[in-house]
């Protein structure tokens, strides 16, 4: 997991290598210029205008879109809903993923097959997961209400007071396999001798877990947690397919809020301003994660 550093340098760089590095990375640099830097600038510009989805007259309006967004209670509702959704689901997927990793980290029959089955939800498009949730939760024909019915439980899963916990639960269900995968990989990478020493010293399994495993796993928790958090912050697919942000605007995530501003109301200026505000919320988190995710390139002047 740790940063892999390129030991030493290649031979002293010659003329050919110097030109080669520009030639070899030209496609990347051109692509970034056209599809990252330019859109960033264009998005910033649009957020300062009254551009609509199909507008021919575009007027500069300054920071009006930002002021309007910050004054919109629906925006703040989306902010708080998204934060709540992110914090609870990230924490729960970390805990459950870790418990699952501890459980799986031993020899047992059928392990290979079961691990494959465990991580299957990661491969399913979240939007299609949303459709399938709609199917299995459907009050008339769904598997889950039918099972609950057998136990005499009749609830309306999509009623206003249940829909938020339900969405959080579904997020946990889909993404615990992901945190499991990262944490399990981290667990397998831990040195065996520490655990052998602990066992020789008569440390109980619980004590070993809390005093040795968890501290050693901090980097894995960090990566899994941040990746989950960043993805949960921009959740769109599952909730859009399941509730469309409703009832009302109760389950609007920030992404759904922006989407509706742009494509339901057709107001690109407002939508990009809101998107820029979200971008500014996420940016401070990035350095923490990047340092742990990317490869060390080596000592670069």
């Amino acid at each position: 997991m740790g940063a892999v550093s390129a030991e030493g340098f290649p031979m002293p760089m010659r003329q050919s290598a110097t030109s080669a590095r520009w030639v070899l990375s030209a496609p990347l640099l051109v692509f970034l210029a056209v599809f990252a830097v330019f859109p960033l600038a264009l998005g910033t510009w649009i957020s300062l205008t009254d551009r609509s989805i199909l507008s021919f007259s575009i007027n500069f309006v300054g920071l009006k879109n930002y002021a309007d967004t910050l004054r919109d209670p629906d925006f703040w509702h989306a902010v708080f809903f998204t934060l709540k959704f992110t914090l609870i689901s990230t924490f729960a997927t970390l805990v459950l993923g870790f418990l699952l990793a501890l459980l799986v980290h031993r020899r047992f029959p059928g392990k290979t097959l079961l691990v494959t089955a465990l991580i299957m939800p990661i491969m399913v498009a979240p939007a299609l997961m949303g459709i399938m949730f709609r199917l299995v939760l459907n009050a008339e024909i769904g598997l889950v209400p039918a099972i609950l019915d057998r136990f005499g439980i009749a609830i309306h899963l999509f009623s206003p007071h249940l829909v938020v916990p339900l969405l959080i639960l579904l997020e946990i269900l889909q993404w615990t396999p992901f945190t499991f995968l990262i944490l399990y990989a981290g667990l397998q990478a831990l040195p065996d001798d520490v655990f052998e020493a602990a066992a020789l010293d008569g440390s109980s399994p619980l004590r070993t877990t809390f005093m040795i495993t968890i501290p050693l796993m901090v980097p894995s928790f960090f990566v899994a947690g941040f990746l989950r958090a960043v993805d949960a912050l921009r959740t769109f697919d599952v909730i859009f397919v399941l509730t469309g942000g409703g009832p009302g605007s109760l389950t609007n995530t920030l992404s759904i809020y922006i989407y509706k501003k742009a494509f339901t109301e057709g107001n690109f200026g407002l939508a990009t301003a809101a998107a820029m505000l979200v971008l500014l919320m996420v940016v401070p988190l990035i350095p923490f994660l990047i340092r742990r995710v990317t490869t060390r390139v080596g000592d670069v002047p």
Partner: protein
Amino acid sequence: MTRTKQWPIMVTLAVALVALVVNIPLIGALLTSFKPDGAITSHPLSIPVPGTLQHYANVLYAAGYDFPLFFENSAIIAFGTVVLTTLISVPAAYAIVRLKLGGQWLLNAVAAMRLLPAMFFVLPFFVMLTNVGLLDTVWGMIVVDTFLNLPIAMVILARGVADVPIEIEEAARMDGASSYGILVTMIVPLLAPSIAAAALITFLFTWNDYIFAIIITTSAARTVTVGVSQFVTSYGILWGDVSAGVVLSVIIPIVFAIFGQRYLVSGLASGSVKG
């Protein structure tokens, strides 16, 4: 003694239970897709024996469904994105890690792109693609999906390049090999597992993308992921047909991922970013 003997089976059962729970949606869709319409409404818990293939036939052949088109679009877009992403990221990863282009800063900047909200970029993309006439085309989708996947591909490939022993490269340089020669004849073959991991994850994320596809495509370039989720709204809810469509759309990524599980796990676990 008996305890140690019984433990493994208990673990198997416990893990199997969790695997069952997280896959309830898939199981539900699979069961529903084989049930006749009557049984879907009257017996939610029944096992469809004997099953019907009517829903699959509807999805694939019935008039009004564009499923074959969606499928073709998804395949072309996913394949095109894998090719474009690989062609851009393999040489760039080598240039950054071994030829020290831009150093840590450039790699970090590319990786950071993945963390930015896609919803921010999709609005300018919509405007840009509209202006150049690439809205609702597979080409437009290939380009935006490449944007989506470049960061993760770069992270995986940069790690792969850093793992290639530098001595091999030094020896080749002594013999007068150029950077291009070294990349093609030495780095690429050694990098094959990383390229496979990056390609597999790129394929998966592209196939599963929803945000870009729902905004950039309207009909001609519509993908299965969006197309199938819209069965629900456009045609009333024919759950049998919807389920068959869902099963057909998830089967490709699942099969790919099972056969490439080794690469998938190494790719995702190398601190990468999911979509």
